[in-house]
């Protein structure tokens, strides 16, 4: 997965939500890393849910369940 991390998009996001704050140079890469790891956790949890429901595709319900399990929400 050699994709470019959308650094400018991340900085704009932060500007939208928290206007006073800025992202330092390498912090946005780490934020991207955080995001990737989050997606990974979400995907794995969704996959587990799909297996439990004995379905061959990941459906929205699985993902919602997965999101609830992950501590943030």
């Amino acid at each position, binding site marked *: *997965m*050699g*994709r470019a*991390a*959308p650094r400018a*998009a991340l900085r*704009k*996001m*932060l500007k*939208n*939500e*928290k*206007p*006073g*704050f*800025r*992202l*330092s*140079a*390498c*912090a946005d*890469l*780490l*934020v*991207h*890393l*955080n*995001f*990737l*790891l*989050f*997606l*990974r956790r*979400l*995907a*794995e949890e*969704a*996959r587990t849910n*799909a297996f439990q429901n004995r379905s*061959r*595709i*990941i*459906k*929205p319900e*699985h*993902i*919602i369940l997965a*999101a609830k399990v992950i*501590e*943030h*929400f």
Partner: protein
Amino acid sequence: MGPGPLLYDVIDDTPRTLMKKIIHLLPPASPVVPGISKHEEPEVAAEEGEAELPTGRPSSVEEMELPGLLPEERPVFTPFTNKKRKQLEFSEFERAVSRQLVQNQALSLLDNPVARSLSMSLDYLVRPDTVERRPLRQRAENRKPLDIKAFEDKVEQDMLRRKAQSCLVDSEMSPGSQATMLTSVGTENKQDHSQWTNPVEQLSVSEEMVVGHVSDKEEDVAMTVNRVDQEEDFREGAAPSEEKGVAEAGVENQGSPEAEREIAQGIGAGSLSKHSNPTFSEKSGMEPLKDAVEQADGLEDQAVLVELDSLEEKPTEDEAEDAENGGDFMKTPSFVCAAAYKQPLLTPSLAKPAAPKPSLKLQQAKPVLKYSRKKPLEPKMSRSFIRVFKDYAKMPVATESFRIVEKCTEKYFKQLWNDLAAFSSHAGRKTVEVSDVEVLMRRQKLVTDEIPLHVLIERHLPLDYRKLLIPVAVSGNKVIPEIKRSSSHRRQKDA
């Protein structure tokens, strides 16, 4: 001797005992006034002979002092306050100590820059609890939406008042300035100013006609003549109603939204002037207005919209009252209803003219605008996360589920930014640094003692980023990227 070994030698002591020691023992340890420490020692030696720590003599002496003091003292300390010292005394010894402390304090504060600096540095040492216990502070809520809206409302009201006053006072104002006033109130107009000047000319003309007689201009003028006849009776409220009349002329003429805004403004201005006249003048004014509106069918929608917009800009109660007064008429109900129900109608109508509106609307229409602003960004993000998600899932993923994933990521990012902002502001910074993100990842249990951050970086990020993030030692005593010593390190060294 002196403060050095006393303060810093204790490895086994807890910070609390250390603090207590410092509070009680600080002044005697001044290097410039040696007599006092020596003086204190025999007194202390006379006390209990316990030695808690096998350190040097002075430190053991002072530590012996501690257990003697401990049961009697109350532990809340702000150092160097004489009052508390007085409260804590019980024994003769303690009184003597306190006397010495006071002396030393006075000395240190007045004469002794060294002791003072010492005391200051120790002050820093003494307070670590409070520093550590300070909770994470979130940023203050931004109260922007209300403020801006109130401000702009006030601005609009001021302008209206100014305009009304100027119309009332100065009947011979130049059309240009009036045009500028009118145009300034209606900010979003992109149509010709020539269309503005026409009603404005009418205004000046009709004003003259109040004094004089018929003008030689077009049908609009004829209308104004009618109106003037009616309005001559109401000289006082003439000016604002003239505006209305002129506005009607404007409606007839161009059917421009500006003119209708002018109508609304005229109504608003009329409301600002004396209230006795408006009903009558409004009625007379409204009739030709009714005709005018009847003529222009397509104007109605615009009228409603514009009315709403202008009303939204100047939500004065007077306006509503006046509009309701003229509620008898057929076509005017469009205005009236709009005015009367301006409150609930405002918010849905706002969604439509979202694009060119000033920031006032921006705040209210924030969800709409923000989404639309994010949209050019989000597709960039979403394409990446679709691919990433698919890779991680290793299973076919339904397309609807991607929308859910997007929602989840939005929520996630909001929390993420909140947390990062909280961490940075806790550190007194406005820039989110690498350390903040690291703390966040620790909290999320992504980074543990077993999985350090660098491992994660190596696993998931492409090579270029790795080079940026992980310092790598290169020959020639160079480290890439450079590790900068932050100011926080320096502070620790000083203490």
